[in-house]
């Protein structure tokens, strides 16, 4: 069973994604802030990480930086799933090593699922 870690502080979004991914046979791990997210990534070695950018304690950019600096975690694909869309945010996340950058409000749940599957196949 493939493991997906979703680092997101908004419980309702966390819940909706977990519902779909669990139904599709994935194991979903949740983390409500950046620090927890990193801890969980280190301990559980997930197959894919969904990452919000505006997070308590450690923001998404910081998490991304630390993930990519770690020998063990640097190859886990990261999909940024956020509503932040400031100047340079997209470029910054992609340069830091994110695979894709999605605006939550503009994507249907089923499209997120499709993308997750695509990235796991690679």
């Amino acid at each position, binding site marked *: 069973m493939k493991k997906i870690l979703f680092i997101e502080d908004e419980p309702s979004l966390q819940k909706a*994604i977990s519902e779909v991914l669990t139904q599709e046979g994935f194991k979903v791990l949740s983390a409500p802030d950046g620090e927890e997210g990193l801890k969980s990534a280190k301990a559980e070695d997930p197959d894919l990480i969904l990452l919000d950018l505006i997070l308590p304690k450690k923001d998404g950019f910081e998490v991304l930086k630390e993930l990519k600096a770690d020998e063990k975690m640097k190859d886990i694909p990261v999909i940024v799933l956020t*509503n932040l869309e400031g100047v340079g945010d997209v470029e910054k996340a992609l340069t830091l090593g994110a695979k894709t950058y999605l605006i939550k409000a503009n994507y*249907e749940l*089923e499209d997120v699922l499709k993308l997750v599957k695509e990235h796991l196949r690679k």
Partner: protein
Amino acid sequence: MDFKIILKKLDPVAECRKYGLGFWQCPNSLFLVMGIIIIVAMILTYFIGIHFVEPEMVIAIVSIVTIVLLTIGHSLVGSFARIAEANRMKSEFVSIVSHQLRTPLSALKWSLDLFRGKRLGAVNDKQKEYLDIINESSSKMIKLVNDLLNVTRIDQGRLVMQIKAFSIEDLIEEILKEMEMFAKGNNVEIRFKNNKKLPDVYADPDKIRMVIQNLIDNAIKYSRKEGGWVDIKVEKNEKMIKVNIKDNGLGIPEFLQKQVFGKFFRGDSLVRQKVEGTGLGLFIAKGFIKLSGGEIDFDSEEGKGSNFWFTLPIAKK
């Protein structure tokens, strides 16, 4: 009435009142005062220069005038800063509110997606009907938020383009597939042929998609009741690709034509019925096309139809 409009145009402080600036803080009126002082001072210096020859006197007058002008200049710079700050605050406000709105809207949308995707059990037809209504409303809210964010970015010159080479003909074909039902529902025939012969354009495909969607959407919304058509033609000029979206719809009356690309322009009055939209679409379209290095414009005749066109640079091979 005409006299009033002329008077309004002559009133130097009119623009400043919007920002809560008085006569002595308004750049327009301050410029006027400066101009008058300079002219009066010149004439005065001239006459004094003729009648009194003492250079000390002339120096004194010039110094006093300079100090007065500097004071006004100082106040002028301050008022510019205040206007800029007011504008920035307004944009910042929209930006913050929009971002804050996106999170609850995504939660609403994703929860709905669970129902509509039948992931929470079967949904009967009646329930589906209402779920679709909620979904449509939430999509509209998201679109409005996105539009407002784009307007803010255009206003602040902070729009980020992700530019690459792509086929505009393929993009149009894709968009038309999505809009097929909307066109049929409005009894509008869409004519387009993908010749697959033109070179790629160099622009941001997501942004250009929004522009094309908006132009076709408008052409359909303001179509005639029967026998409506939209004709899309793509052609190559010297260095640019030009896209024409022509319709035989209601057209835009001449007195409205100047406002078409302005913020919050609505053609509502044209159809005497409510037409969906925020009135931001064409303002955003113009912002996107200009930033892509292209042009956008239209010809229109009331009762006969409109032809909206835009150009984009051809991608270098």
